[in-house]
Every structure is written in structure tokens, then in C-alpha cells.
């Protein structure tokens, strides 16, 4: 009877489960806090570097595609093709050249995927700036540069922030794939737990930390967006 109850509480318990291999265990967490924190730090580091690099490259690229119409097609086409190629294949292309000793392979791969989300969202956002607004700005004597900084970018900012949030959350999930290329953050614990006797507490704890990290970063970006764009707050209220 108690074992059945236990299974029901755990929800996922299979019949004949080894009670020494539960889905979650506080003793695992307390005994391996250092390992978990180290993996979390690596995960955060990879995510932040990749998203920052991607943002720095993607926004100018999107502005370029917006300004020079003939470049929009090739840039969108390239990002579309890249999107079709799975991350593991991309790591496989890079790893023989960049190696797995340093996180270079994983960072290049993650940056490229984040890049294309941000480019697409930024370009869409810039294109949605109403034509009448641009016309009146032009009528008021705004030059190209002033228009970009004071009209187009601020109006596109909500869309850009959405792209950043999607890219960040996706990158957190994608970091785990880096495990094969030597740098997977919490992914190393997930796969490592699977490979060492299917150790459930480790797999589950690392997965939960991964999802939690994604949600926390998403909320941080949401808060940043509200601070940077007070006007959207007023509209919502």
C-alpha cells in the first residue's frame, strides 16, 4: 500500500521502480550543491555571452537589411537556411576546427541561432513602424540618422525586446545540446545522469534548474523592457 501511494505521489513512478532512484531527492541537492551551482554558472555564462554577442551583431544587421532593401532577401534567406540545420549538426561542422577544449564551438553555434531570432524580430518590428509617422518626421526635418534613433528604433523597441526574450529562453534550452561539444552547462548533468546508471535525481534537478533559469531570465528581460519603455506600461494600465 505505501509503495502504491508513493508511486501515485511521484506521478511518474514506473512499477517496480528502485526506491533508491527517486525522481527528486533533497539529499542529492544538498550533497551536490557545488556541482549544481558550477553547472548553473557555466550555463548562465554561455547564455549571456551568446545572447549579448548575437544582439550586438543582429541589430545592426537588421537595420542594414531594413535600410538596404536588396540585402533583406539574402539575410532572411540565410537565417532561414541556418534555422533548418539542427544545432548538433552545426556543432559537428564547427568542432573539428574550433575544438572542444574552449567553449568557442558552442558559443559560435548558440550565437548564430540567437542571431537569427533577433534579426527576424528586429526587422519585422522596424517594418511595422507606420508610414504616416515616418512621413511626419520627414516633414519635421528629421534626417536619416535622427529618424533612426528617435523614431524608428524607439517604435520598434517592443518587437526587438520580444525577439531578445525568445532568443534568451531558446538559448537556455539549447545550451544543453552543447554537451557533446564539451560545454553543456546543466546539460552535462542531464546527460551525465543518464549515462551513469540513469540517475534520476540528477537529471530532474538539472532539468528544473534549466527551466527555472529560462523563466528567471525571461522575467528579468520583461522588467528591463518595462523600465526602458515606460510608454508601454502606461498603455497596458
Amino acid at each position, binding site marked *: 500500500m505505501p509503495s502504491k501511494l508513493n508511486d501515485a505521489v511521484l506521478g*511518474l513512478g514506473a512499477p517496480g521502480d528502485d526506491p533508491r532512484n527517486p525522481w527528486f531527492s533533497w539529499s542529492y541537492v544538498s550533497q551536490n550543491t557545488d556541482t549544481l551551482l558550477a553547472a548553473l554558472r557555466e550555463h548562465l555564462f554561455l547564455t549571456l555571452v551568446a545572447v549579448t554577442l548575437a544582439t550586438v551583431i543582429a541589430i545592426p544587421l537588421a537595420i542594414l537589411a531594413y535600410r538596404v532593401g536588396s540585402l533583406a532577401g539574402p539575410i532572411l534567406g540565410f537565417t532561414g537556411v541556418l534555422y533548418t540545420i539542427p544545432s*548538433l549538426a552545426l556543432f559537428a561542422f564547427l568542432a573539428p576546427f574550433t575544438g572542444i577544449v574552449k567553449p568557442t564551438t558552442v558559443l559560435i553555434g548558440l550565437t548564430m541561432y540567437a542571431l537569427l531570432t533577433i534579426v527576424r524580430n528586429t526587422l519585422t518590428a522596424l517594418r511595422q513602424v507606420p508610414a504616416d509617422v515616418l512621413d511626419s518626421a520627414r516633414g519635421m526635418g528629421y534626417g536619416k540618422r535622427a529618424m533612426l534613433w528617435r523614431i524608428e528604433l524607439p517604435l520598434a523597441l517592443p518587437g526587438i525586446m520580444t525577439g531578445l526574450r525568445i532568443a534568451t529562453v531558446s538559448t537556455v534550452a539549447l545550451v544543453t545540446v552543447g554537451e557533446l561539444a564539451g560545454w553543456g552547462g546543466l546539460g552535462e548533468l542531464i546527460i551525465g545522469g543518464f549515462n551513469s546508471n540513469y540517475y534520476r535525481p540528477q537529471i530532474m534537478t538539472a532539468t528544473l534548474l534549466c527551466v527555472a533559469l529560462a*523563466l528567471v531570465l525571461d522575467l528579468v528581460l520583461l522588467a528591463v523592457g518595462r523600465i526602458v519603455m515606460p510608454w508601454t506600461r502606461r498603455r497596458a494600465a
Partner: protein
Amino acid sequence: MSVIEDAIVWLNDPLNWTNPDGIFARTAEHLWISAAAVALGCAVAWPLGVLMGHVGRGGPAVVTVTNLSRAVPTVALLTIFPLTAIGFGPPAIILALSLFAIPPLLANAYLGLREVDPEVRDAGRGMGLSGWQLLRKVELPLAVPYLANGFRIAAVQVVATATLAAYVNGGGLGMIISRGFGLGLASGGGQVLAGGLLVALLCLAVEGVLALAEKALLPKSLRRVKHRPPASVADALPAGS
């Protein structure tokens, strides 16, 4: 440059193609696992999305499902499912992959029904069609371009994601890459590169074939419909692959 030569040598060895775990067998495995996952995803997501779109409720739920699926690492689900009652083997892999097929299928099915012109709907109702008849004779046919688009996005994504099954020894073309990494980059680098190339080619081929099929199979009258699915749905994809 020797890595590139290694990759060419590896690809030129006929045994690497015809072995029981060679490229042909791995590709077949990759494709049938993906097909099963997409079929399962369609069986769940389409009725649900069509129903929600017909009733006009559940938009926030669709968005929530999409956002959540982005935060959950594919690798984690692929690792967790074999350790549940499902057990090791293809069913666990298929189930995990199908979960990542659901968001684009669901979002496009819902959107397809919501985008039906309200006037067309009104006209149908004015002709005395019941809710069920309206769905079957008016709304569903008009939503076909969206369903097709969702199917293509989901299928391409699942084929890409199925590569990750290699992390849990689950088969597919990804196994070639993971075996290569297992040998170490010094001796397996060529195999890693060759595997990456094969996976990328398979994904691009599936994308191309499905795009052509979508063009060829959709009736002209539906293709002329101006409202193509907006970029937001394509962008609402989880990039977990």
C-alpha cells in the same frame, strides 16, 4: 584541412553506407521516428486546435504552450521519458519529439480557423448550416493552407530535433555525429563533420520536398488567399532543435 579529407574518406567508404548501423539504416530510422512523432503530434494538436479555433477560445493557452515548449530542453525530455513507465526504445523518443511538434501544429490550426473571414462564416450560418456543417464545409477547407504550413514547420523541426536522440542512444543520423565525438576529435573529427553534413542535407531536403509538396497539392483557389500565415506564428516556433 585534413579533417575535410577525413570526412570525404569516411563518406567514400561503402561500408559506412551499407553497415547495419550505416548511413542508409540510420536515415531510415531517422525518418520513421520523425514520421511517427509528427503523426502523433497531428493526432493530438489538430483536433484540439481546430476545436479551439472553431469555438474561438484558447488563444492564451496556445501562446502558453508555445512559450513553455521553448523553455524545456529537448535533451531533458529525451532523457526523462525512457526512465518512466514507457521504457527505453523508440516509443519514448517518439513521444518526446511529438511534444515539440505540437506548438506549431496547434498554433497554425487555431490561427487558420480564426482567420476565416467572419462574413463567410455569417453567410454559412445564414444558409442554415449547423455548427458542425460550418466547420466541415466552410472553416476547415479555408484553413487548409494554415494546416499545411503548420505541418511543414512541425515536420522540418522534428526531423532536425530527432538528431538529438543520439544523446540517449536512440538512433537516427545523429548517432554518426555522437559516435565520432566518442572517438575523440583527433580520430573521429572526419566522421563528426560527415555526420553534420548528412544531417544538414537531410533537413534541407525534407524542407525542400515539403515546400514543393505544399505548392503542388494546395488547390489554386486556396493558394490565392492573400492572408498567408503571419511571421509571428513562424517565429513562435520553439527553437529547441
